[in-house]
């Protein structure tokens, strides 16, 4: 399903910089879009401040429920979000959150392996799931009269998943194929993984969501069961239903199906803090399959939840001004005026549990020297820190962002995603609804302070994707050893090819 994402400016950029690792069990590419909050049905949007105008309540067992009514067509999206993701994994068990996501489509006490999806399809619905560092979510898009069916099945697998080696082990091979397809066959994605691992040296955001191939290969049924029993409790989950449905329809069903599942103690999500590093870091991936180089520069940035959170809203305005589209500073300077790049932009999403990332990316014009391009990018970013942005830039960017809220209501999935991400990362329904007001309140001085705090950091990380000389592909022997992690000098994962990859590190 392709919900329009054009208004959610950060989304494509972020998918590129940060969220590449979100993994669904299928080709559906259900990358999470913790984008700027977005809205649904408002009888009189002018009369009330807000975005989606949801209703929410809590079950007795601690499971939170959010309902967003949108009566365009008689369909709904039904989502269950667990407040656990790849960053909550035990060291050495990297990838277990995502692996379990795959295994949730296997048997329960009531359903055969694969039956869940077959029943959804038989009922004219579509289902899938995705995992991020901070959450794991399962969804079904179905006709509105199928709500009870999907809720019943979703509640069933929250309580009664039954794993056997017969289903677990082939699925582990599927995940390894997924990793090959999404990461190892794609140099740009390999670089993203390496840059992320080098930006977060200590914090678990540095481990890919899907895991490293050598660790995935060792994950077991017991690992999956342990993760499931530790984290998949109703009091650690959020139910979001959006579409042609009301809270009066959702509440009795939620009480009937999720209500009886007993709450359990769930571990606190205590994650290590990334220490400050004084060294400049560069990651260079040279790969024979690269014909078009690219460059990205990433900065640690606060989120809504960690660090100098006061900058979270101003940074969204800053990103719009510096890298939001064809009239942004970077595009105008690097693409239009200096003719150094064919594309340029920035990405920032504050919607994470821990600290976030502010990134800028550029793709060079033919035969442009990468050092020159990098210097030009650095100069533009330095100029923002040095001279600040103008009142007019801030006013225009704010207007654009505030209008996002109206476009965001024109969607089923957008609102559900916004609440799921927010609630799974420690924020509230009210935070989502207040987004336009908080953007509107941002001042020029706040934007400039945020720019100094983030872009003014002395040690951003730079990632370079560069071509390597093409070697005789046919002559390369297959190498089947375990994949190398990012700290190896040859860090192309299980890519056994003539590509000559190098990760410069940490």
């Amino acid at each position: 399903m392709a919900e329009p994402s054009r208004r959610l400016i950060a989304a494509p950029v972020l998918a590129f910089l940060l969220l590449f690792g979100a993994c669904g069990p299928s080709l559906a590419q259900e990358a999470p879009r913790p984008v700027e909050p977005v809205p649904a049905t408002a009888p009189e949007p002018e009369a009330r401040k807000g975005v989606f105008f949801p209703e929410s309540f809590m079950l007795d067992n601690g499971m939170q429920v959010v309902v967003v009514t949108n009566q365009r067509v008689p369909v709904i999206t039904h989502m269950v979000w667990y407040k656990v993701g790849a960053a909550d994994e035990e060291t050495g068990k990297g990838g277990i959150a995502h692996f379990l996501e795959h295994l949730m489509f296997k048997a329960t006490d009531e359903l055969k392996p694969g039956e869940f999806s077959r029943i959804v399809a038989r009922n004219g619905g579509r289902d899938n799931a995705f995992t991020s560092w901070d959450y794991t979510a399962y969804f079904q898009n179905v006709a509105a009269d199928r709500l009870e069916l999907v809720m019943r099945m979703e509640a069933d697998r929250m309580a009664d998943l039954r794993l056997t080696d017969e289903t677990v082990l082939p699925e582990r091979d599927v995940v390894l194929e997924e990793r090959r397809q999404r990461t190892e066959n794609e140099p740009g994605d390999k670089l993203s993984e390496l840059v992320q691992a080098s930006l977060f040296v200590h914090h678990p955001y540095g481990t890919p969501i899907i895991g490293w191939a050598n660790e995935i290969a060792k994950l077991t049924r017991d690992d999956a069961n342990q993760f499931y029993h530790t984290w998949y409790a109703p009091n650690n989950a959020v139910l979001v239903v959006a579409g042609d449905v009301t809270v009066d329809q959702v509440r009795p069903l939620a009480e009937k199906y999720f209500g009886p599942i007993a709450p359990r103690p769930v571990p606190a999500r205590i994650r290590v803090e990334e220490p400050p590093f004084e060294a400049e870091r560069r990651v260079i991936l040279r790969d024979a399959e690269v014909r078009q180089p690219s460059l990205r520069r990433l900065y640690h940035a606060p989120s809504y939840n960690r660090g100098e959170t006061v900058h979270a809203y101003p940074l969204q305005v800053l990103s719009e001004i510096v890298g939001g589209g064809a009239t942004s500073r970077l595009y105008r300077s690097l693409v239009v005026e200096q003719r150094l790049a064919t594309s340029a932009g920035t990405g920032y999403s504050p919607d994470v549990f821990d600290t976030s990332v502010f990134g800028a990316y550029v793709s060079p014009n033919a035969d442009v020297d990468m050092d020159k391009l990098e210097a030009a990018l650095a100069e533009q970013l330095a100029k923002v820190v040095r001279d600040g942005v103008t009142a007019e830039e801030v006013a225009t960017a704010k207007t654009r962002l505030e209008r996002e809220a109206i476009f965001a209501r024109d969607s089923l999935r957008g609102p559900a995603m916004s609440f799921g991400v927010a609630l799974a990362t420690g924020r509230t329904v009210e935070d989502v609804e207040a987004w336009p007001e908080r953007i509107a309140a941002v001042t020029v001085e706040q934007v400039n302070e945020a720019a100094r705090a983030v872009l003014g950091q002395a040690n951003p990380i730079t990632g370079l994707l560069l071509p390597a000389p093409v070697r005789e592909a046919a002559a390369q022997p297959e190498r089947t050893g375990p994949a190398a992690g990012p700290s190896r000098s040859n860090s192309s994962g299980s890519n056994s090819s003539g590509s000559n990859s190098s990760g410069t590190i940490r």
Partner: protein
Amino acid sequence: MMRRLSMPAFLSVLLLAVACFASDARAIDIKRVVSPGGIEAWLVQDSKIPLLAIKFAFKGGVETDPAGKEGLANLASTLLDEGAGPHDSQEFQRRLADNSISISFTATMDGFYGGVETLVETQEEAFELARLALTEPRFDQEAVERMRSGVLAQIRREQGDPDFLARRALYETAFPDHPYGRRARGTAESVESIKRDDLRAFVRQRFAKDNLTVAVTGDISPEQLGPVLDRIFGGLPDKAAVKPPADTVPKGAGATVLVPRPLPQTVVLMSQPGVKRNDPDWFPATIVNYVLGGGSFSSRLMEEIREKRGLTYGVYSYLVPFQHAAMVMAGGSTANQNAGTMVDLMKEEWRRMQEQGVTQEELDNAKTYLTGSFPLQFTSSEAVADVLLQVQRDGLGIDYLDRRSDLINAVTLEDVKRVAGRLLDPAALLTVVVGRPEGIEPTRTKDDVPS
């Protein structure tokens, strides 16, 4: 069919749901609007959110690019919003961004598509910018060179994309003497050779009232829409000068083309001749495809290759109904050492379906999916307009959404068996493999790096 659902209550929920299920597409009320100037559009009025989406298409896509100028339609699609009328590129883009208006153009194989999305509060500006983009694009040298650079970068990027390499090899083999065998973005050489005059000629020849289709969704009434249609499209000439290519049949039956690349995973792509959208067997073929590989987790290809054996993350099939040719395609990827096994399994499923058709249960499941999932795509204004536009382009009639479920439900087991037998032929498959596949004997190796 739900034998493992042990709890009776569970069963009753399922059965009840199936029993009372009907097509919900009827909820969509489509109005045919003809402007004072004679321009037709289909409209779904929806005032819940103060915005609207206009989608339109001109017949003739990249297939009509002149030989040697491949990539012309694509380059033009990048330039219509890069300066028009009195506004240069930055001014045009600034007006779009400051008013939260999106104007987009895309060249596909068979058509040139455009879209306008705007809030009601900024719609006047949106209509004016759309009019200018279609009727007075400037093609300033600066913008042309900038967009040309961007396209050339995309072409370079694609050269390292195994999925692109697979598609390129497949289309070049299937359509060696037909425009469908060319690349939509063109080659570095052909894109370099495109001049501003070519772009101006493109607009003059391609955009006209007689090859235009329009669909609109959102907060606008039929009375309001009429004048808007004239305002945006009224300045176009009456007749287009597009010469469609001849109908053709894909070639390459039985060939296996290897594109050797130093990758850990082999990308597989297969095709054979298929059915066009106006073929009376379209829905039986749709059901064949759904059961074979179009049904995501529920398909035979996924069951055999992913679920049972863990050989792939994804394997799928789909119908490709171009205007002048049609294909059934299938694809997926697997570790190099399993490539031969995967191709064999795909061909085996092809054969099994050809010989035996589908079971009654598979047919029933396909029908409830295909009818029930249809409304799921109507969840945004743009998506509704996209469906309206495609139904018009395919000539299916304004009542098609009401008839669609009946057409699907009328398909019999015999229809499916006959069509599967006619459609699927493992010996006719053209196979492309990109990577370093083991267990595959290519009939041809294509080891050039595309320019």
